[in-house]
């Protein structure tokens, strides 16, 4: 006779909460803020660096680059509509193959490694400029050394955001939103005040359009007299020196994965916010600076803090201008610090995409026990950024010279891939297409896309000859990183092969908790839906739930009731044990696809339906939505569930009992019952 209590007691035997960094979703505004913190922060340094490179014509070219960013973002939206975990690596991998993808990732990582330091140092320069302005205003006869101040500040900010990123993106994305909101206010004040200043001027002189190129800005091209004779090439050279204003745009694709439902609509909204803000902030304020500050002063005093210079040259009393400079510096410091953060987020995103294909060993993807972040990658990125800050000695122009190799060549590979994919993956679903297409047969020939490719290829090739520092350092860094990827891939060959055969596995943290109450305590109140999952190939019901959510306060608990072989009841005893890593990876990918958070939970049990009923009761869910079993009919499943529900209700106070609907959902059909 059976007396083993393990077999006859159906209470869940162990509760495990699954955590991962991949299940927090952000609004369009938050996404735009993350991108803008990096992308628009270039307003604080791009103009000054461009001025030093090719003279007073710089605002036209910065403006041109900002307009071009709009086209690039449209290309990004198309890529995101094809790849939820978008960005350079998956797109180039699909379009041009793995080696090109590794090269593109290595190239863009070079620029992310520079974006953090350039932003941190720029913030330091603005701060030092303000301190010196104050010291001068109160007639104190000394100045803080700008470069040292910049290095110290950049190091502090990098370390701060290193810690924030190890803690998780949710905290940092909220900070970005606050920074951008504050910067918008400052931008508006600056615009109005600069407008009044211009009206008070006797004469407004527009900056010249022709760039003044010298041996430094022409680089190796100074040896080719033919190149110098072609006027259009001068425009390309100037644009090439202004490309650093695009710094951080790749983050746009990286944040897509985090954007909440409805994803593409929210991405379009974010794109519009980013485009308009960056156009006004970077393009507009740089232009106003050139109209208000004399060019020689920009070159001599304000090349490292252009917008502070704008504040100091507005019409009005000095103390008000000093306050405005303070506000600009505050916004600049916050935004540039945000850019440091975004550069870490962006680089982390790219490294994760590379790691997911098995190119990087498990060491890189190790998840932080408490915060669920890929902290080894974050540590590595921050360490490289600290190295760049120290090596630069605070010289902003030096990093500016090195910048743009990575961003341009990654654009070349990514945009080319997108054009190729129009033919290669013709049937792949796209919720958005870059405009200007000609439909021929079953193909949409990407005229707009081809124009973007042509433009980035031209800029990249010209820059290869003109920006010597960028070419040498970019190629060296990218080659080194490519080598790291290659060696790591060789070391990880078996794993990579498994990943190729079985698909990518998400790294998950599994924390055992005492009981169900403890596991459920952090799930917000609201309409809770329990979605039991068993088979990674049968998650149709989860997709249906996510597709049909209309209520913001719906919380979805995804439960895997894991049968423990030794004492499982029923046919599950013979069933092959499901790999929970594979199961939850699929769950996470589906949640990401729809941009909706889920709460994954694993319980050990000897009766699946009892476990579902116990969790449903403990979580006070309104609905249980199950997939149809491959072994039993939907009616049998529902019968067992109502029996289990009845059993777990034993001893419950009737006042505590609430109604609950159970549904078994499969393609085109469902069976439901309201308890």
């Amino acid at each position: 006779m059976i007396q083993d209590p393990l077999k006859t007691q159906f209470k869940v035997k162990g509760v495990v909460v699954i955590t991962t960094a991949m299940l927090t979703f952000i609004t369009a505004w938050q996404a735009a803020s993350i991108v803008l913190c990096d992308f628009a922060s270039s307003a604080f340094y791009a103009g000054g660096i461009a001025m030093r490179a090719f003279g007073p014509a710089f605002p036209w070219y910065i403006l041109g680059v900002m307009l071009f960013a709009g086209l690039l973002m449209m290309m990004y939206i198309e890529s995101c509509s094809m790849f939820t975990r978008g960005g350079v690596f998956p797109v180039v991998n699909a379009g041009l193959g793995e080696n090109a993808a590794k090269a593109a990732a290595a190239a863009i990582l070079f620029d992310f490694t520079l974006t953090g330091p350039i932003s941190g140092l720029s913030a330091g320069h603005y701060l030092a400029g303000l301190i010196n302005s104050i010291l001068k205003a109160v007639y104190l006869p000394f100045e803080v050394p700008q470069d040292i101040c910049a290095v110290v500040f950049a190091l502090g900010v990098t370390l701060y955001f290193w810690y924030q990123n190890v803690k998780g993106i949710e905290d940092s994305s909220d900070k970005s939103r606050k920074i951008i909101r504050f910067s918008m206010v400052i931008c508006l004040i600056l615009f109005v005040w600069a407008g009044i200043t211009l009206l008070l001027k006797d004469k407004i002189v527009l900056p010249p359009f022709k760039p003044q190129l010298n041996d430094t800005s022409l680089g190796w091209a100074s040896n080719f007299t033919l190149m110098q004779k072609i006027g259009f090439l001068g425009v390309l050279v100037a644009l090439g020196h202004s490309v650093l204003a695009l710094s951080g745009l790749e983050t746009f694709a990286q944040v897509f994965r985090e954007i909440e439902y409805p994803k593409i609509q929210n991405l379009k909204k974010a794109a519009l916010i980013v485009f308009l803000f960056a156009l006004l902030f970077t393009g507009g304020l740089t232009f106003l600076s050139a109209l208000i500050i004399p060019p020689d002063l920009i070159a001599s005093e304000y090349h490292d803090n252009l917008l502070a210079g704008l504040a100091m040259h507005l019409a009005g009393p000095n103390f008000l201008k000093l306050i405005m400079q303070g506000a600009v510096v505050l916004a600049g410091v916050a935004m540039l610090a945000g850019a440091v953060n975004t550069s870490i987020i962006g680089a982390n995103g790219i490294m994760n995409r590379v790691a997911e294909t098995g190119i990087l060993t498990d060491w890189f993807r190790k998840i932080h026990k408490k915060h669920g972040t890929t902290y080894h990658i974050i540590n590595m990125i921050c360490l490289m950024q600290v190295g760049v800050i120290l090596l630069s000695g605070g010289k902003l122009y030096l990093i500016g010279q090195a910048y743009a190799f990575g961003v341009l060549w990654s654009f070349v590979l990514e945009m080319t891939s997108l054009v190729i994919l129009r033919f290669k993956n013709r049937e792949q679903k796209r919720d958005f297409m870059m405009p200007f297409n000609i439909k021929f047969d079953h193909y949409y020939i990407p005229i707009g896309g081809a124009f973007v490719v042509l433009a980035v290829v031209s800029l990249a090739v010209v820059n290869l000859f003109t920006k010597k520092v960028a070419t040498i350092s970019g190629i060296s860094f990218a080659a080194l990183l490519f080598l790291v990827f290659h060696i790591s891939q060789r070391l990880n060959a078996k794993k990579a092969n498994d990943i190729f055969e079985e698909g990518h596995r998400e790294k998950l943290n599994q924390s055992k908790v005492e009981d169900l109450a403890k596991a459920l305590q952090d799930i917000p109140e609201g309409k809770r839906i329990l979605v039991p999952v068993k088979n990674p190939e049968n998650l149709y019901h989860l997709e249906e739930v996510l597709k049909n959510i209309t209520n913001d306060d719906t919380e979805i608990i995804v439960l895997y009731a894991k049968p423990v072989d030794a004492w499982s009841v029923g046919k599950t005893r013979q069933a092959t044990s499901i790999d929970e890593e594979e199961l939850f990876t699929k769950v996470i990918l589906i949640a990401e696809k729809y941009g909706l958070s889920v709460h994954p939970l694993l319980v050990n049990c000897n009766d699946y339906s009892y476990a579902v009923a116990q969790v449903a009761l403990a979580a006070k869910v309104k609905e249980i939505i199950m997939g149809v079993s491959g072994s039993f009919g939907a009616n049998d499943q529902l019968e067992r569930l109502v029996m289990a529900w009845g059993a777990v209700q034993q001893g419950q106070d009737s006042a505590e009992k609430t109604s609950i609907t159970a549904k078994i959902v499969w393609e085109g059909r469902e069976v439901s019952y309201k308890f």
Partner: protein
Amino acid sequence: MTDISDIKLKLETDNILLIKENITKKELVKKLVGCICEKNPSLNSEEMLGAVLKREEGISTTLESALSIPHARVEDLNTFLAAMAVMAKPIEDDYGLPIKVMFLFFSPAGQPYFAQHLKMLAHLAEKFTPEFVQELTTCATPQEIAKKINL
């Protein structure tokens, strides 16, 4: 407790058995099906037994409380028909779980009755707590059991 006042259930006292001898689950199911079919000649006991056993091949109908609820949905029926057995010694179900009480019923097969069918299962699962099942095993007569279960 799940309300089943809207369900027409027929469980006659002479369909309640006290089982003292050694018996297998299949034999017990056959006995209970026989009890119901004897009083409802329109039901073919072979067919009914086949339907119940087929359902038993699916997800288990035995609960933690040692209550087993074999059942089948039957065409042309408009009442729930039931029989039950209380074991002096627990028997084993197909998965090695103990059964102390077996409550076997037939329900009407039409779709409108499915909700009632589920309600009946939920009600039985809730009502037959381990303590209640244990209590039933101490009953000396079917009448005493009928009085206790009060369905």
